[in-house]
């Protein structure tokens, strides 16, 4: 692998990893929000029955 190929691959990898990291962070935040929704639904049910 030549130096030119290595650097080109590195540049494209940086973009891929950067976008992937962002998507992973957003996905984990959405999972947290899903858990929060489920918790609030449970709380609302308890209020209704109690």
């Amino acid at each position: 692998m030549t130096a030119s190929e290595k650097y080109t691959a590195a540049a494209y990898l940086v973009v891929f990893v950067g976008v992937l990291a962002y998507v992973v962070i957003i996905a984990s935040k959405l999972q947290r929000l899903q858990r929060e929704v489920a918790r609030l639904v449970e709380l609302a049910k308890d209020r209704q029955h109690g």
Partner: protein
Amino acid sequence: MVAGGCLVLFTAALALVFFYAPTDANQGLSQRIFYFHVPLAFTAYACFGWGAWKALRHLWKRDPEADLESYVAIHQGVIFGALTLATGSIWAKISWGVWWSWGEDQLVLFLVLFLFYCAYFMLRYSVDPGPQRANMCAVYALFGVALIPVSFLAIRLSKSFIHPVVFTSHGYEMTNSQFLTFCVCLAAMLSLFATLYSIELAGKRLDASLRELRELLA
């Protein structure tokens, strides 16, 4: 829909970059960094411009959603800006032999623009949420947008530079196949911005609604 379009455009962009666009006679394979590096920079400008437009909407029309939309656009702009700096640095190393050149107006002004918008988050998180914070952030976002034409035109006004100029007043300095590849890459990058922007905005809105609900149930 937007995410699907983004996926199609990225597949087409990568195919064009590696199988269609001709290899540059001077720079060889490393010139292909251009097809992602420049669209990333243009998309960062678009994000900051969109953020400033939403900031103006907030100040002018008092649109309640505009502050959050402006914040998300600037957040995206900083991400695209960081990727522009990273890919540009890698390209500089293989082309010029250095990771960074402080003598280049284009590079330094883009860094200034990037750091200016990084400081936006310091301002935002140092003030309590409310109308005052929204107003301060909107004014800051509007000031920052003035740096975009300066950053873009710097390379054209500069007397001595090594950073290549592709878009001049006479048109584009590349072959038609290279220009087509560049346009598809730019469309792919803008669609990525649209996708990430809508996902992050939906998440932020959901978070705000949940906070309200939590307070109501408390």
